[in-house]
């Protein structure tokens, strides 16, 4: 491990559902609302497409935080997808917490297509939270470390 004196820049993976949150992120862009470049978005059709495996995979590969954004409950493009996602993620996050992994590294946020501002605010806040936590060491794969 080399000592790095530069400021810690977290790696954040954001899974966004195509219909609401991705559109919300687009709106944030259209409105020039800034949030840190540490956030990288992966487009998925629906929040229910996000497998817990993907989240663990991100942590394995060195992500410091993973956030899942979907339509507000009740507004899912596929009617019920985010309800399943909500249960899955609640249980997964609870399990990660139970294993002693910082729960603040994971989050679910409902962002509609109209909530560009919320998207940007959420990302700003999440990046801040994760930056404070520092590097993800509890759930990383040492082999992936550079």
């Amino acid at each position, binding site marked *: 491990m080399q000592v790095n004196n530069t400021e810690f820049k977290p790696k954040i993976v954001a899974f966004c559902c195509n219909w609401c949150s991705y559109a919300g992120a687009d709106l*944030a862009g259209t409105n020039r609302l*800034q949030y840190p*470049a540490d956030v*990288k978005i992966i487009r998925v059709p629906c929040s229910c497409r996000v*497998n817990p495996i*993907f989240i663990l995979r991100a942590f394995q590969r*060195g992500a410091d935080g993973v956030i899942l954004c979907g339509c507000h409950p009740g*507004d899912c493009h596929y009617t*019920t997808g985010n309800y399943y996602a909500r249960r899955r993620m609640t249980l997964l996050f609870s399990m990660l917490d139970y294993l002693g992994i910082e729960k603040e590294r994971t989050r679910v946020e409902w962002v509609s297509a109209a909530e560009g501002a919320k998207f940007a605010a959420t990302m700003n806040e999440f990046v801040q939270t994760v930056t404070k936590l520092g590097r993800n060491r509890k759930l990383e794969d040492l082999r992936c470390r550079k």
Partner: protein
Amino acid sequence: MQRIGVFVCHCGTNIAGTVDVKAVAEALKSEPGVVFSTEYQYMCSEAGQNIIKNAIREHQLTGVVICSCSPRMHEATFRKTASAAGLNPYMVEIANIREQVSWIHKDMKAGTEKAIILGRAAIAKVSLNAPLIPGESPVVKRALVIGGGIAGIQTALDIADAGFEVDIVEKEPTIGGKMTQLDKTFPTLDCAACILTPKMVDCAQNEKIRIYSYSEVSEVKGFVGNFTVTIKKKARYVDELKCTGCGECTEKCPQKKVPNAFNLGLDNRRAIYIPFAQAVPKVATIDADYCNMLKNGKCGVCAKVCGAGAIDYKQKDSFIEERYGAIVVATGFNPIKLDAYEEYGYKQSKDVITSLELERLMNAAGPNGGTLLRPSDKTHPHTIVFVQCVGSRCDDGKGKSYCSKICCMYTAKHAMLIREKYPDTEVYVFYIDVRTPGKNFDEFYRRAVEEYGVHYIKGMVGKVAPQPDGKLLVQGSDLLADEQLRVEADLVVLAAAIEPDKTARSLGTMLTASMDTNDFFTEAHPKLRPVESPTAGIFLSGVCQGPKDIPETVSQAGAAASKVIGLLAKDKLTCNPCVAHSDEMLCNGCSACEKVCPYGAITYSDKEFRGPNRTTLIRRVASVNDAVCQGCGACTVACPSGAMDLKGFSNSQIMAEVDAICK
């Protein structure tokens, strides 16, 4: 190994202003699989698209990554571009470096870095893309409307009007539904029968419309554009084709003590009957529960008097199989049973009635020929109490949590009609809130209060106690005056909550159309797709989707019809190729995916597989109907073995993106 081309768009200065596009194109050049990388002013312009097309041809590209604006903006454009150059359109991925990079980051270095990472993720994804070909399925040009009330009738008429054939399945002997039982309609007070019966006749006479009355849907197979429905025609013991509806039999039938369902049991009819004069089809039906001939083989009067020879005691239930391209659910509603509401004395006193019963009592074709008389002693009631929200907005478990929506208005209508016809009658209305959002609705309610002097009392009725003298002692509270009220009433009318028809639940299961906990059908989107079920090809009309009044029902019926017409107008349906797919070799047959699929796109079947040592194994495996699946991916996560995957957003693709981003 793919041959990938990368195209970085400047978007004028929109992107190039904060992203070093040349550096991005250069950096992505050395990614695995990339054989060509370039940048251009406007990739979406014709010139830009030509660069893509030429590169595809020149470099035999098998995948294209475009670093540009949001895919929501130009994904379709670039897919068409690829397609035009002979590349499968689904081999295109977009890295969103405008909305997600240049527009939100000011720092050129950070922006460029992020753009490269997003580009890398798109390259990683496209490396795992497979060409997808949208499937096509033919459309059967016929619609089925389940339920022949005003919703079903209106939908059927509109569909037929557009030139498509449509069948109505109605479980009662006649179409018309609840509206036939109504006396007048709010807020215009025009007579329900006068506006409904012509539409019923239109249905009967329209050669595009077939009515299956006294029938039920017993099985539904297939999917959008291609449903196969089995309709059970219940035996009515009368040949529909022969019966002229003359009514001779209904007058001669010796069994006179049959509670008249049309009048809600307020009077009696014969064992053979036509529900009401304007019934469509106007055909007699024998009530097998009461007919002496059917019960013990003794009678046969109707057969003797029938000049047309239409009576057939040996008739059996028959089944018809028909194919449809679309199905409209219009199963309507019923008032809830009030047996649980002992405090209102509905069971104890004949003079505590429901609003629908009041409609019949006031109707000219009703049991009293339109004169309002107490059911118990046929005397004129002088004090009438209306109780609102009986079973609506109710959290006590006895009723429904929702607002039934129509009660406020029909009660105002009832109160007004009574005050007009019998000015000597005092009318009290106990309410929680009066809800009148609708055109001319509030004016209507205010007329009831202001012009007709109806006593509106904000408060609930605690108890209705039948008195020895036949009066009903109504105890309630007046919340505004903060006092307890006691009213000696002659008649108490309960505004019973409405609930979806009991047949809806089983029908929902057959259609794999999702329902809410109250058994109302769920719409595909509460705001944007209110008349479609999430299950493709299933449309919703009327109260089966949620409480609504007649004008709303009719407009929804029209909307559903237009959606159906839009579907039937197509010869073929193009399916979204980004659908789920089950790997049979991995499938456990556990049904988890089936349970979370909002569209009923997943079915299971037993299949033979080759086992070890030349044995055959039979395994239950899932398969996805491409025409029905909408590609949400809920099933992919429910599946523990990873047998379910989503084309276009496969597990490996998403993980490749994750890897590329976290690298």
